[in-house]
Each structure stands twice: as structure tokens, then as C-alpha cells.
């Protein structure tokens, strides 16, 4: 079913909307949540909560594109649960990906004044625009979708080693970019 038709089902308050949403995007959502949580049951609950979130948001929202809207809800809910669980559990793609970012962003100095989130989002978008489409997808798949190197390799046709090397370079570029703009020192 096309996304517009699914949204019309939400507007009609038909339970069929959830079925169609699950049919079309269930696997993507489960995969994303599982990457973050590394736990099938937690991922399951987050995806169901995301469906409920979509049910409550539409209407009045009429998201376009629908999959990005849904994935954002899944990612937010899954990360919230990840941080809540972090004290007792470790492991999974999310932990490793965040550790990679921590290494890239670490600085012995503290920058005065926290950067506004909206400003940071703008800077990240600008940085993404400087990357080639393939490198941009590598960054997004690794740090937005929390994919493993193997999954990124399968999607892009690169070898795992190549993915790893490219991501290391992208992180270095990111660090340089943020330092130039005095977001980190």
C-alpha cells in the first residue's frame, strides 16, 4: 500500500493502518531498534510503542516521508530505553558506535558554553553535504541506523574492511570540521 493511503487509514482511525505500517516498514523498524538495544523483546516493545506514537500523532500530523518519520520515533524510543538499560546491560552495535564517536569527539579541553542543539544539527547537516553520497550513507547507516560494518558492506557492496577504513576517515574529517568551528577543541 502506498504511504498516502496508509496515512489516510490513520486519518480514518482504522486499525488497518497499523497492519499496513507493520507490513511495509516492520522489518526496518525492528532492525533499527534491535541494533540499538541488542534485545529482541525490548526492540519489539519499542516498535509497538512507535506504532502507538504514530497512531497518536497522525492526525493531525501528515508526515512526509512516512518512513523517516516512523524511523525517527523508533530511534528516539530505542535510544531512551538504551540509556535506561545501560547501567545493567552492555553490548550491541549502539554501544560500539557511540564509543567510536566518543573517541572522535573526545577533547582534553572544555569548550565554554554548550552549543545550541539546533546549531549543532545545522552543522551536522552542512558536514553531511560536504561528503560524497556514498560516504554520507556510510555515516548515516553507522551512526543513525546503528548498522554493523557487515550490514553496511552488504548494502553498499564494499568490503567490511573498506567500510571500516572509510568510516575512520569520515570520523577524522568530522573531528577536523567540528574543531574548525570550535565545537570541540
Amino acid at each position, binding site marked *: 500500500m*502506498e504511504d498516502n493511503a496508509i496515512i489516510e487509514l490513520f486519518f*480514518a482511525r482504522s*486499525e488497518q493502518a497499523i497492519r499496513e505500517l507493520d507490513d511495509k516498514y516492520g522489518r526496518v523498524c525492528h532492525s533499527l531498534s534491535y541494533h540499538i538495544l541488542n534485545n529482541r523483546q525490548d526492540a519489539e516493545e519499542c516498535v509497538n510503542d512507535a506504532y502507538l506514537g504514530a497512531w497518536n500523532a497522525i492526525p493531525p500530523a501528515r508526515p512526509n*516521508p512516512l518512513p523517516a518519520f516512523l524511523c525517527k520515533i523508533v530511534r528516539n524510543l530505542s535510544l531512551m530505553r538504551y540509556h535506561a538499560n545501560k547501567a545493567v546491560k552492555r553490548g550491541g552495535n549502539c554501544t560500539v558506535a557511540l564509543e567510536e*564517536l*566518543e573517541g572522535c569527539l573526545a577533547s582534553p579541553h572544555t569548550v565554554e558554553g554548550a552549543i545550541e542543539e539546533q546549531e549543532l544539527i545545522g552543522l*551536522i547537516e552542512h558536514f553531511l553535504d560536504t561528503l560524497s553520497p556514498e560516504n*554520507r550513507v556510510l555515516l548515516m547507516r553507522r551512526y543513525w541506523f546503528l548498522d554493523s560494518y*557487515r550490514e553496511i558492506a552488504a548494502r553498499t557492496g564494499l568490503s567490511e574492511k573498506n567500510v571500516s577504513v572509510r568510516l575512520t576517515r569520515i570520523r577524522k574529517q568530522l573531528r577536523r570540521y567540528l574543531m574548525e568551528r570550535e565545537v570541540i577543541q
Partner: protein
Amino acid sequence: MNATEFSDALGKVNNQYIMEALNYGRKRKSGWMKWGMAACFGLVLTMTMIMLPGILRGQGNILPPSGPDVPGPVVGSDDNQPSAGPLQPSDEGDIIIHWDNIAVNESEGPSLDGARLYRDPEFYDMENLGEEEVLAYYGWDLAPAYIPEGLTDGGNAPGGCLYREKATGKVIEDQAGRGFWTDFGEDGCPKSNDDLYIPTGFTIRASKLGIFHCALLQPDEERTTDFGGVSVILTHCSMKHGPFDPSQKAPDGLSNMPAGYYDIYVASFTLDGVEYEVEAQRLELEEVIKIVASIINIPYSRNFTVGNIMDGQG
């Protein structure tokens, strides 16, 4: 700034970056697969139409099974085979339905049990099944001999996937499916061709290891209907559709008053070691019965009795 703050900000970037990452790779692959499989399907269909009558009759009276997992019965040479192609029934094909012996289970609603398990690629290999692989694995192309008028496969070949454990090479999940609908969108998904937004048609799913996706909540006690010796579980659910009237409550008290209801029927059965599920939307029960009967009795071309009384009184 730490990694969490960066990750939170990254999570809010413009949707265009998310969509690019979502569609990258898959788009290229599916485009190739779509056109490649469409071309294959056209070739196979053409060859089938040319060769089908001879193939079906085979030598002697019996349709030769292509393997131990081929569903469907043997067919005598005196049967009238469809001449216009394999997808439509012969006009001579009759089905006798003993309505008194049809057992339909009422379901409380659709099942959203999250049965779509995520298989970590570190431990599992996934193989996509195209038309040829579906034919090889299930022994047929999941196109029932009877398809209600107005429904088509929209040019989509059957498809599915297998998951294997890397450690053992064992297949742990196998599902294939095919849909027949009144209309299809540009993305190949079923589409409604009226104001209801609910597509009309059906999907058939098959699995040798058990179907993990169950469309409707199952009632506590399931009754079965006899389809020529094969037990079929027929389940029905009435689904609400909009527009909904906020000034009144629906009889269940859970939602606003719907504009109406539409039917979902699910027929589940096992045939020659393959589990099947036919899920139909906005189709009459009689149509669902005919579809299922035509799967059990391939091809749909001779009398077939549904709802037999087992002691021979039917």
C-alpha cells in the same frame, strides 16, 4: 560535547538524509530484481502458456509431480484444462459447497504480535527467493488456479526469503508469498481503486517450517472445515473503516462510529508438508473457499466438494 549529544543531534537531521540512507543500495538491488524478475516472469509465462496443456497431461493420465513437496492432487487427462493461461479457472470447474458444514472462526482482530523477527546477519545468512527459487523450493509458483475476476498479480512474480544459521547451514525460516489485487501502486504495493482505501484481493503465503506471521488473532477453540480430506481453518474478522463519526461510539465502545465494516478472511492449512495461509480482504467467503479449493485441487478443473460430512452423509 559527548557522543550522546552528537547522536541526539544527528537523530534530528533533515529527513532527506534518512531517506537517502534508507533507499541506498536497496533501491539499486530492487530495481534490478524487479525488472529482472519481470522479464523472467514474462518468459516463463510465455513458455508455460505454450507448453502447459502438454505438460499437464503428461504421459498417460497423471500429472507428474515435480518433487515430494508438490502440493495438489493428480489430474486425469479427461479434465478440461484452461486454455487461456494458468491463472484462470476452467468454466467447467464446479465446486460444491456444503454450507452447513463450513466452520468459520470469529477472530477478535488483527494480530500484531511482532512476528517479524530480526535475524542478525552475524549469525544468519539471508537468501532472497525469486520466482525460479520459489518454484524449486515449493514446487509451484503460488498462483492459485482460481483467481476471482478483477484480481491480478500486477506483474509481480512470487518472492520470499530463506534464513540459514551460519554455524550449521540449517534453514530456520522460509517464507514466500504472492498477492493478487484489484490495483497496484507505483511501488508495486496493492492499492485500492475506490474511496475506501482498503485494497481488495488476497495474499497467499507458504512455509515448510511454519508461517510465523499470523494475520488474525486466533480464537481459543479452532474449528476446521474439510476440503476434500484436507483440514482448513477459516477465520473471519470484521474490520472497521472510516470516515468515523466522533459524535457516536462504535458498539464495542473502543472507537468512534465507523462508516462501515469490511471482511478479512484467513484460511490456514497444511498440504504435503507446506503450511499455507491465504489472507483475503473485501472478498466474499465463497471466493475464499474457491481460492483455497483450487490450491488443494490444482488445477481447478473438476468437481470439488467443500464441507464434506466425514461419515459419507454429504
